[in-house]
């Protein structure tokens, strides 16, 4: 597989904080157009990896290629093709939904119609004049997703996108991400704690434990007698037991 056929490719990606290795040399290969679930327990290194992918944290070692290019070579060109959502649903609280999206639109050079398109996509139009501080957690999450989708990115990097959404919202976002992947060829790289959700949505899953990518699983090839949740818990629990012995 060449870097050009991959949306995300990392080699030996590592990040140390003092003596602690938050990410200890991972090789990720996310194919274009696929939905890739990135799973791990708390503190496994998921968010640090996502931050490194977006240039928010500098790797201690290793290389990153996004959509065939390196952030170091042309940061702006690469980032203009990526939509992202990191950890919490953050927005400017005094600004309305529309104003928050308008800031993103201007800074990504998107056309004015893009704001209406993503508001319709995420069912935010009825809240367009409401300030972000008055939105529910679920609608703030939708606003963050709308931000990520506003400039029609080729790659979506999402950290816990279903966080705070009600069951109906989760189903809706799942359908949206599936459609973006199937119909528009958008690659989705997402971390989540909702393993059932990831199992239904992802094509492949990478499991990170203690800063290392311990397994990549094709969701279609999971044994029938084991769910992704059971597989994940078995794998990470075995590793934890191995570490304590």
């Amino acid at each position, binding site marked *: 597989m060449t870097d050009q056929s991959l949306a995300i490719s990392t080699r030996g990606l590592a990040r140390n904080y003092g003596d602690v290795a938050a990410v200890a040399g991972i090789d990720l290969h996310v194919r274009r157009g696929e939905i890739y679930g990135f799973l791990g327990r708390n503190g496994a290194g998921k968010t640090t990896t996502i*931050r490194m992918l*977006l*240039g*928010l*944290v*500098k790797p201690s070692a290793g290389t990153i290629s996004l959509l065939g290019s390196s952030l170091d070579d042309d*940061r*702006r*060109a*690469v*980032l*203009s093709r990526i939509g*992202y959502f*990191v*950890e*919490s649903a*953050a*927005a*400017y*609280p*005094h*600004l309305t939904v529309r*104003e928050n999206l*308008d*800031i*993103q639109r*201007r*800074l*990504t*050079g998107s056309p004015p119609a893009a704001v209406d398109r993503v508001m319709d996509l995420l069912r935010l139009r009825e809240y367009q004049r409401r*300030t972000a501080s008055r939105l529910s957690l679920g609608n703030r999450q939708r606003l963050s997703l709308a*931000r990520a989708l506003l400039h029609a990115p080729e790659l979506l990097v999402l950290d816990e996108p279903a966080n705070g959404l009600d069951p109906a919202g989760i189903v809706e976002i799942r359908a949206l991400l599936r459609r973006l992947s199937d119909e528009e060829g958008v690659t989705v790289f997402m971390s989540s704690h909702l393993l059932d959700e990831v199992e239904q949505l992802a094509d492949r899953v990478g499991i990170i434990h203690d800063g290392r990518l311990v397994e990549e699983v094709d969701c279609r090839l999971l044994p029938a007698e084991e769910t992704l949740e059971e597989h994940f818990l078995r794998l990470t629990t075995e590793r934890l037991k191995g570490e304590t012995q």
Partner: protein
Amino acid sequence: MSIATVLGTELLKLRRSRITWITFAVYAAMAAVAGLFQWMMKDPSAARTLGLMGQKATLAFGGQPVDWPTFLGFIVEMGGLGGLLMSAVIAAWVFGREYAEGTAKNMLALPVPRWHFVAAKIVVCALWLGLLTAWMLAAAVIAGALIQLPGLTASVLASTAGRLFGLAAMCLACAPLVAWVAVQTRGYFGPLGFAIGTLVLASVFGHTGWGPWVPWSIIGLCSGAAGPVTGLGAGSAAVVAGTFVLGTALTLGHEMGADNAQ
């Protein structure tokens, strides 16, 4: 992506924020209080019977003529020390809010050169402080006219405006250091603590021979708060300019490098 676009978005971020109106209200209140003190000093014996307010008015204007030059001189003093604190509040808010509200990580991963954000935010601070200064001058003129002070001439007004805007420029020069503390400490409290510390430093060094070499003291000395302006020269101007360069370089360095989001 032009820097004008980024500046436009930075200005949009001010919309509906209470802090903007609070800063304007504080500056109006400062001019109103100065006007009230001058009005009280029209009759010094009556001022002495007005309790604490009368004492404050006597402290501020006692023994001085009740006229426009005295009144506007006091406004300039307040513009210096008030401007130092206000520029810190503005810089802390403009830079620190991105971290306090969790939006820094979104901003810094945008396909926009990061220095554009730093430059645009400094321009926002400059515009904000400039408007506040003009507002304070206007409020002072209205207050002085209401209490019918004598002695207003075009040259007094021009000199006051020049000194006020000059002080605002010096306060702005100190703001990037506050911005750096805001992005380093990722919020509001660090820079506001730093600003209070600089006011203490300004006061301490302002009373020693080191005043002309400490940026925050220079502003106090230039405002006339420590008496007639003496001992300030090109060296002091270089210190203020150097403070701006240092603060801007540190803030840029922080925002340009990785490892700088929440």
